[in-house]
């Protein structure tokens, strides 16, 4: 009679199916890379280097330089987006497909363990070994998994405590000292302290810092969660008490890096925990009210400098690469003093070589380097675990509730502990 009735369910199913196919992407599971890791070790030839968006034009000039010197082992640059999650997912897809064209990849410090455990990264030992003795120790730790180096530190990053030189005579060394200075903030009608407390990766960074700085640890040496400790409790309580007491302003739980920087630059904060990038903007932006009064110090800890969370990237060789000898040479090239200096001057990326932090020319250009060195030397890598995505969610979820006062620090930590245990137990 009318238009064929059967079309109706088909059309409906079609519409609906789109919803599923949008979600069901990605597939396949792991396979051990045992055989692949032994192949291509002597291979030389053109390779591809994969990295997120090259915003400050650092990588291209370097690759040009390399290519001029190695006409038969040219490096092609594959540029990803500037979104970290997308970079992660892109790498996962290509590694799963055993793509031999992703020879060298830039890997965020928090992905190293996951990729290594999936068997996608070439262990950097025996034939592939390289010397890391000149590098800052925490950066090497973050690039290792179960005692084996899987990537070479490429750039680093650590937290810095920014403060108002005009209002604070000497930078606080401990958390308690900083809290006692909050009366200065009250007197000046401003917020005292802020970091990044929105529920996202930045909260993991800040909560781990609080826990580590108080002497606790998210994971112990064997990678097991160790959060039911008085130290961890004291660390998290530093944040919860500061939020409840108003030392952290109430809008603090909506802050990401940029919002907190903006508040500090507008003169609304006495202390700010943030990354080194703030230095340039806070001293040059026209609207900044802290241009001439910007102080920098290491994060406050229990008795001395606190433990920053470590940021940055490492370069890793894919086990599926056919030209691993070339890839290894390229890794070495990325970590030479000259290259690292270029990273620092051109891209404001923190070097991984310890001695560069004392380089006079460099310090003149980037005055935060001495403070950053202390920060990175005392840094603790964010939990090195192949279950990082689950661990970071567990930390965010519970730390957020604790800061908002929905549960006590103790309950939050024990929930974190249980969540991480459950995630690591696998299915």
């Amino acid at each position, binding site marked *: 009679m*009318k238009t064929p009735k059967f*079309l*109706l369910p088909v*059309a*409906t*199913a*079609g*519409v*609906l*199916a*789109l*919803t*599923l*196919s949008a*979600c*069901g*992407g*990605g*597939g*396949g*599971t*792991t*396979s*051990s890379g045992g055989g692949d890791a032994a192949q291509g070790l002597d291979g030389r030839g053109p390779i591809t280097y994969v990295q997120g968006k090259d915003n400050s034009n650092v990588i291209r000039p370097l690759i040009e330089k390399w290519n001029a010197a190695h006409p038969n082992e040219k490096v092609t640059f594959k540029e990803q987006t500037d979104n970290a*999650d997308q970079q*992660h997912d892109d790498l996962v897809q290509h590694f799963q497909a055993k793509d031999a064209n992703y020879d060298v990849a830039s890997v965020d410090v928090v992905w190293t363990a996951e990729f*290594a*455990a*999936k*068997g996608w990264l070439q262990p950097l030992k025996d034939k592939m070994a390289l010397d890391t003795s000149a590098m800052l120790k925490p950066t090497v730790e973050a690039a290792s*998994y*179960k005692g084996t180096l899987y990537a070479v530190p490429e750039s680093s990053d650590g937290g810095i405590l920014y403060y108002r030189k005009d209002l604070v005579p000497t930078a606080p060394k401990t958390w308690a000292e900083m809290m006692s200075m909050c009366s200065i903030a009250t007197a000046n009608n401003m917020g005292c302290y802020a970091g990044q407390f*929105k*529920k*996202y990766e930045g909260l993991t960074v800040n909560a781990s810092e609080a826990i580590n700085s108080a002497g606790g640890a998210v994971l112990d040496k064997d990678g097991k969660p160790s959060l039911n400790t008085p130290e961890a409790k004291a660390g998290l309580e530093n944040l919860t008490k500061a939020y409840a007491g108003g030392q952290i302003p*109430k*809008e603090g*739980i*909506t802050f990401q890096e940029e*919002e907190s920087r*903006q508040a500090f630059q507008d003169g609304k904060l006495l202390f700010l925990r943030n990354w080194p990038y703030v230095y340039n903007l806070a001293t040059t932006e026209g609207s900044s009210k802290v241009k001439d009064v910007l102080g920098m110090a290491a994060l406050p800890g229990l008795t001395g400098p606190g433990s920053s969370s470590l940021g940055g990237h490492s370069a890793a060789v894919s086990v599926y690469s056919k030209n691993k000898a070339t890839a290894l040479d390229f890794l070495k090239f990325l970590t030479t003093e000259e290259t690292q200096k270029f990273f620092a001057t051109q891209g404001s990326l923190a070097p991984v070589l310890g001695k560069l932090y004392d380089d006079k020319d460099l310090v003149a250009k980037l005055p935060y380097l001495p403070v950053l060195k202390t920060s990175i030397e005392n840094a603790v890598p964010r939990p090195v675990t*192949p*279950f990082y*995505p*689950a661990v970071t*969610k*567990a930390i965010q*979820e*519970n730390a957020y509730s604790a800061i908002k006062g929905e549960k006590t620090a103790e309950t939050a930590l024990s*929930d*974190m502990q*249980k*969540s991480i*245990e*459950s*995630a*690591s*137990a*696998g*299915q």
Partner: protein
Amino acid sequence: MATELGPTPVKEPVSGGTPIHHAPKGVGEDNAIASQGRWAAWLLAPTILALAIVIVYPIISAVIMSFQQDAGLDPATGLFTEGGPAGFSNYTNWIFQQCAAPGGGTVACPPGTLGAQFWSATGTTFFFTIVTVTLETVLGFWMAVIMARTFKGRSLVRAAVLVPWAIPTAVTAKLWLFIFAFEGIGNKLFSTTILWTGSEWPARWAVIIADVWKTTPFMALLILAGLQMIPAEVYEAAKVDGASAWQRFRMITLPLVKPALMVAILFRTLDALRMFDLPYILTGGANNTTTLSILVINQIRQGFNAAAALSTITFIIIFLVAFIFVRFLGANVVEQSGATGRGKK
């Protein structure tokens, strides 16, 4: 979109139950129909093939994956190993909110795991769907009635209304994120100090406001298309008979626009049940704004197979809702153009 404006001619339903075909009929009708059928099959084949590749295959592979266990870590080597078949455990784990226990077996998911969020995410998804679709229907209807009138600058209004709909959702979300920032224009304008993205109800309302702002135009235009189908004579006749404005709205507009309205609501409902970008960008899923889609994306990073199970569950939920709409509420996706055709015999 709405390009052909003005009164649209009404399709007279063909009486006597002849199939609505546009091809000329005549001698050798049977032959023509048969060859037409073959033709149709051939013409449809590429589309069906394309659908099979982009829709059927992913669905089937997702379903197969959902019956596999996620890779587990071999404690000796520190490497991931294949999980093996899982039966229905991926599904039951979600539904009963069970998580792996350290010593083997399962326990109730502790807060902080994704598993503990399944029912709250389902509730949130339906809450958002019901509230946003209701608001959008009411506001969209109102806008459509206004746009259906003749006034100066009508085409401009119709075009302008589309702007929020034309902006990509992710961009919309960023815009509203700035508006709802603590130092943002939202708080400045009303001299409030609400933590829009930092506390439960404001966060929900932030998502709802942004969603309504964005998709009401879509509703309005679909309803407007329905209103245009109603012939002016019907209203004139009613006026002559002395029907009041309210009576005309209730007895003529509503029943005649219902098919188009139901389709609009169906589309919006299905869309709202998959809501992802807005809460993801505005709140990151904090403060009870995690929808099922956000949960799926978070789970993909922690294990594909459990994520496949969750997306299959989401699919079934959405399918059921669509089924209820089509079967019991008379939303008719395919025949929406024949708005006046139904009910007449």
